């Protein structure tokens, strides 16, 4: 219904034309642009836009809403929209928890005009991966209801303490939504609770989606192909700038010792105990001596991070937190320099690859250590390693803390 507003019923059939338009526009007059090149450019652009020492809301709470309506069986993404979405979400979840270690996620699916929660808000990536596995084999059917899914996510998210950032990410294949009431009222409520809603559309622009994203401060994107889909998803791995309305807080947190329970540790070897994390799944429960013990109430867990079920303390390990420090101390963008095949060039400082005129249009220079890197290392350093190997190789530039 919302999509009918702008009067173009067969919008998604013209998807291919739109793809080419996008390429022409993005490429500044170059006609031979490939999708891969667009993506690489977008990556670098995003890298440059990232501000250092930006204040970010790191305790993120996000609901991922997956469309499982009839149209998700379409094969414009291979093998089907549903399977492609699940595959990419698997990678997204790993990446998300990697970069947002003390955050929580939940998953909701939309089908037959209803919303169904397949995994509740939790910080354990494994549970979501398992839930996704089930979603992969669910049959698609009916129409989605955006409003029902939003209401369901909002019911959980609005209960969270005010320092938590709240987000909903919707992957929508359908161009229509079948809602029981006025969705605009829901949008106003989402706004009121500072819940940011972003949408990724597999089909085309839908008016109400754009309006929802705009009103709540989220992002809206239409995928061009699966690589672009992945790129749009991974945008949400990066924490959103903390909304001004969120109240900052000092959160009490426990850092448990890890006891391996290996043979030979007689003195302070712990007793055999059942972990709290597997209490609800008796078949997976392991009776063992090793584990992490809550410093406040001594409950045992086999994995961190976790919220202690007995006393409510958030348990994490120092490396879990350290994993997020790169948001505070990001590597400054490297300068892009043209590569001249004629010049005598050393190979890439870190991967040792020799530059070639065919592959390397540009080379990249770190402004701090002045070392030169290839394009692959430039992206690897900024997206994965979060440390400049050149800077870390000299005593005067090795520390990020000043």
């Amino acid at each position, binding site marked *: 219904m919302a999509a009918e507003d702008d009067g173009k019923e067969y919008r998604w059939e013209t998807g291919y034309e739109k793809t080419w338009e996008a390429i022409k526009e993005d490429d500044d007059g170059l006609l031979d642009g490939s999708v891969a090149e667009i993506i690489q450019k977008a990556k670098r652009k995003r890298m440059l836009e990232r501000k250092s020492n930006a204040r970010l809301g790191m305790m993120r709470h996000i609901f991922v809403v997956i469309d499982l309506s009839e149209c998700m069986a379409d094969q414009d993404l291979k093998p089907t929209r549903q399977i492609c979405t699940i595959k990419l979400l698997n990678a997204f979840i790993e990446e998300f928890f990697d970069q947002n270690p003390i955050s929580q996620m939940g998953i909701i699916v939309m089908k037959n005009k209803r919303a169904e929660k397949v995994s509740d808000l939790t910080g354990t990536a494994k549970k979501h991966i398992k839930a996704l596995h089930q979603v992969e084999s669910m049959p698609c059917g009916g129409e989605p209801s955006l409003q029902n899914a939003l209401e369901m996510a909002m019911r959980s998210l609005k209960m969270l303490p005010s320092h938590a950032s709240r987000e909903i990410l919707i992957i929508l294949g359908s161009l229509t939504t079948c809602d029981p009431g006025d969705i605009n009222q829901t949008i106003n409520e989402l706004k009121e609770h500072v819940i940011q809603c972003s949408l990724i559309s597999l089909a085309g622009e839908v008016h109400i989606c754009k309006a929802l994203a705009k009103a709540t401060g989220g992002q809206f994107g239409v995928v061009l192909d699966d690589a672009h889909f992945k790129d749009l998803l991974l945008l949400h791995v990066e924490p959103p700038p903390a909304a001004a309305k969120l109240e900052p807080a000092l959160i*009490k947190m426990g850092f448990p010792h890890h006891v*391996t329970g*290996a043979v030979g540790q007689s003195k302070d070897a712990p007793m055999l105990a059942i972990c709290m994390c597997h209490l609800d799944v008796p078949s997976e429960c392991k009776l063992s001596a090793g584990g992490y013990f809550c410093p406040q109430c001594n409950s045992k867990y086999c994995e961190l991070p976790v919220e202690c079920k007995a006393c409510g303390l958030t348990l994490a390990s120092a490396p879990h937190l350290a994993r997020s420090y790169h948001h505070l*101390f990001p590597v400054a963008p490297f300068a892009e320099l043209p590569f001249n095949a004629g010049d005598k060039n050393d190979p890439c400082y870190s991967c040792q690859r020799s530059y070639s005129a065919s592959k390397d249009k540009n080379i990249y220079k770190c402004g701090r250590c002045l070392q030169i890197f290839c394009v692959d290392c430039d992206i690897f350093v900024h997206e994965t390693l*979060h440390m400049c190997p050149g800077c870390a190789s000299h*005593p005067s530039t090795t520390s990020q803390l000043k």
Partner: protein
Amino acid sequence: MDTSEDLTESSLLVVVLDVGLSRATTLRNDPALAGQVLEAVIAFSNAHMMMRLKNLLALVACDTETTEWIYPESKADMSDLRQQDGQHELFNELERTVRRKIAQLLKRSAGSNSKGESMLSGALGRALCYVHRMQQEERQLNARVLVVTANGQSVSQYMNFMNVFFTAQKQNVLIDVCCLGPESSLLQQGCDITGGQYFRPPQPQGLLQYLLWVFLPEPLLRNKLALPPRVKVDYRAACFCHRELVDIGFVCSVCLSIVCKFSPICTTCHTLFKTPGTLPIKPKRKKAKLV
């Protein structure tokens, strides 16, 4: 037969050698040891290359001033090193290159009398970039890193090390550590995070035996061997204010800095906090929405 599989599979070993060995107090009274360590590393590298036809090796060195790419040299990289009858030449070339470039590095750093930390995290960063490249060029590549060092306690490089460990974990790269100096809890964490083996030889003089025994077997094989047991790893957090290990601390929700006592302002990001302790949860009941 098995051979077809063996040919497609290759295993990359990147050795990160800290040449600042003589600075470690435990090794200072034995000046010949640094030479022995180099011999052992070269012999170990050859042993790795002999394990399988398609095995690959790289070597990065570091000292307190810099890191240096030792092997393979980028020019040699371009010519085909895997000639069927070239195995002996390959070993020769490896040995000559390593000796020559290590000597150059030592000569350069001989002048400076720095007592600082070794630039280990930089060398590891270069190693992982190389692994990243090789993993993209070759599909079926197992890769691991072996660190041979005597200086593993590096406070100023703490974040670099963490970035390196998590990157390695993501790349599925094991980090093994052969520690010749005092125990290093930081490197122990790295081994624990990446699934590698941490080992501190009781007698550094016998390094080659230990290397061959503990670090030569590929990860898949290791489960079947009785290797030194995993140590207990201390994962407590150090507070930003006193650099002391804490069981329970306070974490800034904006920047994740850890402090040991409640304070109304974050020292890292200067955020002001309102209430101490847990936050009240007040479920606001909205009026019924849909009619």
